[in-house]
């Protein structure tokens, strides 16, 4: 199969318009007859479901949480980027496009990245209109701040709760359409498989998480908006329920998985304190605007942070990357922290953290000003650690955060299965090998609100003439039977170890071998070890309770079974890519001063893996840079 990204003709700035001009339309009377399933109710899913419903389609939206308002977009703190140039500091769509492409280390498509920047400006208009209380100047205009990897101020924010405010706006708009009877919302419902009929996505099998019953839903198109899969590391900044199952099921049904190993490790999370820990809480990157990161110059320095004089501190980001300093991109900041921690300069009980210090900022801007900017983040830090960060520096550490990888999609956001779309974090499209801060809320929203509602008609216009299927179709029966027997099989094992036991084991391997730095030996070992975990899981896991009831242990087991398989592919992808780019750092491929060594000639492509009965076949989508010449990324 030849991968065709369907990039429209023309100059960069004309491509999206050219696409829209050529795209087929559907008249409003016919839209009413078409059904669309949206899986996930975060910014991408809720935005898409609401907008598709406004356009006239009948929409069914599913989420595993008890309410659409819980989706993990809610947790994004720092902000959302847009090329408004309100600060008059030289920003433009082109600059934002260039920053994003460069931030991703030239492993994303020019056309997609440009469109992301192009649509950022109307998106801010949209959210303001929906009532998002963004930060304001006294005169009433919108405020911006900086984020990593960028030298202009283009980030819009609502205190440290930007994701929450955007998600609540999307959730409100979604429920407006529920009231209008154009969306039916199915909370506490988890998609367990995709139904493909004659090569096209035609429905899903869902488990009602309260009754445990399996249900079938048919549609003319299926949209996955299921978020990231970094819970494969177990310890991550993600919500505990976040999972890769919908993606994995779609992958096994024919959707190619692109760049699965590209995972962002966030530099500013709270460090792990014990084995029992379930979550690494993120502290927003926005803190790096005013906080300074340092470790003691002396190894194993046990003095209290405030007792270490300035001259004996190593502000290593400012030292190594003077032009970006504490605002170096995430992959670089994380690796720099790991380097210092591994070299024995880490701080905290387990020596696994670095300091993020606000003393200078408090002296310079005053306590009130810092409270106004970051008050809720300092409160959160205090609630979790019991430490007052206005007095003591925060202790932070890198943690698994964002999946740049995801289902391969073309310019229309369609996967390799016709009629199956992937939007938001669950696709691979705009971020390349590293995502810039505050581009995640942006991509999720733009995919859901602006792009998908303009591309899905191009498929449905033809599809509306094809026969539609009901849930009685044999393919639905067959798929439901397979899901049923998968569940039965897990419950029947009745072994001697818990689901969490296996998840901890998997997480450790993945964190060790497939996170911030990777090498051939480690990855090969990891693949073997994960195979063993898989065998052990299927022989020895123990899940109590039944399938026909609310059973949280069964939910976890089903998700982990998929994570184990996904982990194998992630390691294979990382092993296959013999270069370093962005967050993918292969130890064998680095410059003399320890920076990533990209090999554009050999690896200037997006890897897209095809599933074939337990084996993975690599396809390559060559990345052609027509408008920007890839350069060596430097933040020094």
């Amino acid at each position, binding site marked *: 199969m030849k991968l065709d990204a369907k990039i429209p003709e023309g100059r960069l700035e004309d491509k999206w318009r050219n696409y829209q001009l050529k795209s087929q339309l559907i008249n409003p009377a016919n839209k009413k007859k078409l059904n669309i399933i949206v899986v996930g109710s975060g910014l991408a899913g809720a935005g898409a479901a609401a907008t598709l419903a406004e356009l006239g389609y009948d929409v069914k939206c599913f989420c595993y949480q008890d309410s659409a308002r819980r989706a993990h977009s809610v947790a994004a703190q720092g902000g959302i980027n847009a090329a408004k140039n309100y600060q008059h500091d030289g920003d433009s769509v082109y600059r934002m496009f260039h920053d994003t492409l460069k931030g991703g280390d030239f492993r994303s498509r020019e056309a997609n990245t440009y469109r992301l920047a192009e649509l950022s400006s109307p998106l801010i208009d949209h959210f303001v209109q929906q009532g998002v209380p963004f930060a304001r100047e006294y005169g009433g205009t919108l405020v911006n701040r900086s984020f990593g990897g960028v030298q202009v101020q283009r980030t819009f924010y609502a205190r440290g709760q930007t994701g929450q405010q955007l998600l609540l706006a999307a959730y409100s708009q979604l429920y407006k359409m529920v009231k209008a009877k154009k969306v039916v919302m199915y909370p506490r419902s988890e998609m367990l498989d995709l139904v493909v009929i004659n090569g096209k996505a035609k429905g899903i099998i869902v488990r009602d998480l*309260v009754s445990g019953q399996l249900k079938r839903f048919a549609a003319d198109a299926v949209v996955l908006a299921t978020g990231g899969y970094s819970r494969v590391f177990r310890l991550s900044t993600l919500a505990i329920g976040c999972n890769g199952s919908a993606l994995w099921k779609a992958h096994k049904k024919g959707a190619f998985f692109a760049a699965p190993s590209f995972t962002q490790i966030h530099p500013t999370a709270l460090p792990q304190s014990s084995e029992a820990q379930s979550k690494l809480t993120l502290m927003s990157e926005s803190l790096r605007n005013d906080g300074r990161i340092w470790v003691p110059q002396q190894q194993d320095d046990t003095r209290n942070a405030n007792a270490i004089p300035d001259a004996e501190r190593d502000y290593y980001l400012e030292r190594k990357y003077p032009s970006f300093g504490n605002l170096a991109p995430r992959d670089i900041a994380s690796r720099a922290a790991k380097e210092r921690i591994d070299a024995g300069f880490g701080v905290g009980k387990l020596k696994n953290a670095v300091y993020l210090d606000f003393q200078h900022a408090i002296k310079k801007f005053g306590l009130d000003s810092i409270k106004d900017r970051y008050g809720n983040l300092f409160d959160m830090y205090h609630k*979790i650690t019991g430490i007052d960060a206005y007095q003591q520096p925060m202790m932070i550490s890198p943690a698994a955060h964002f999946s740049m990888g995801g289902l391969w999609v073309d310019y229309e956001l369609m996967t390799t299965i016709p009629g199956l779309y992937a939007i938001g974090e669950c696709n691979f499209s705009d971020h390349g090998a590293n995502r810039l801060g505050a581009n995640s809320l942006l991509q999720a929203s733009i995919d859901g609100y602006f792009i998908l509602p303009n591309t899905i008609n191009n498929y449905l216009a033809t599809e509306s003439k094809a026969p539609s299927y009901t849930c009685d179709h044999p393919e639905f029966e067959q798929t439901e039977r397979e899901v049923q027997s998968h569940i039965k099989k897990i419950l029947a094992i009745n072994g001697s170890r818990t689901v969490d036991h296996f998840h901890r084991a998997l997480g450790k391997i993945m964190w060790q071998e497939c996170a911030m730095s990777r090498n051939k030996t480690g990855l090969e070992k990891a693949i073997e070890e994960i195979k063993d975990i898989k065998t052990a899981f299927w022989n020895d896991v123990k899940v109590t309770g039944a399938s026909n009831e609310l*059973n949280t242990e069964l939910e976890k087991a089903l998700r982990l079974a998929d994570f184990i398989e996904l982990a194998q592919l992630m390691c294979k992808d990382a092993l296959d890519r013999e270069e370093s780019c962005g967050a993918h750092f292969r130890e064998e491929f680095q410059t003399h001063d320890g920076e990533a060594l990209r090999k554009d000639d050999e690896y200037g492509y997006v890897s897209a893996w095809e599933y074939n009965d337990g084996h993975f076949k690599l396809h390559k989508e060559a990345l052609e840079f027509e408008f920007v010449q890839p350069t060596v990324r430097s933040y020094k």
Partner: protein
Amino acid sequence: MKIIFKIWRQDSPAEEGMLKTYEVDDLTEDMSILEALDHLNELLVLRDEKVIAFEYDCREGICGQCGIFINGRAHGPHDQITTCQLHLRSFNDGDTVVIEPWRAASFPVLKDLIVDRSAFDRIIESGAYISSKTGSAPEANAILIAKEVSDTAMDAAACIGCGACVATCKNSSAALFTSAKINHLNSLPQGESEAHKRVIEMTSQMEAEGFGSCTFTGACEVECPESISIVNIAEMNARIIKAKIFG
């Protein structure tokens, strides 16, 4: 560290529930209360028992999904935090900790510690939005909003929808939740044209869901993880009167 948990077990809405005692003695004080329950659940699995069903998702205090009564208080012994932010260092070795689900007629128990809070979604559905379609927005800076106005809207908008306000209220009133949303949207110029309609429809839905009336005890704002003030309720009441006169 040892904790003696007394936990509400109830298999389904139709069945009766009861407190069951579980002694767990290999805990550490930097565990969160939910991590302690995770640990207890692993022990239960190995003892061939069904796990305790409880709610959580983000575990960083923002999604609003977790929420249980701990020793007679919503979200535990501290003011203004979520359950997931409560750590065992708040208890003493050997303490007895009683854990129950939210108690409110409008939040029926589904299983063990899990309740159904869909009434909140229906209150939102009744009018907590600005009726403006995707694609129809004016330029963002064309709407000037004073910092104080935006800050006040944000204070109210911060609600995470956990339901602690309802659970802790002796009347099971949802006035804090509903008023926070109304004030968020009604205080902004974008929300103005539907302001009267919104306040009437949302408060009517709140009543239809069977939530009790507010008698201004102030219990809710003590437990609210986002410190949402009961001033919001007074403001909502004023808005109801205004809507009835001018709406």
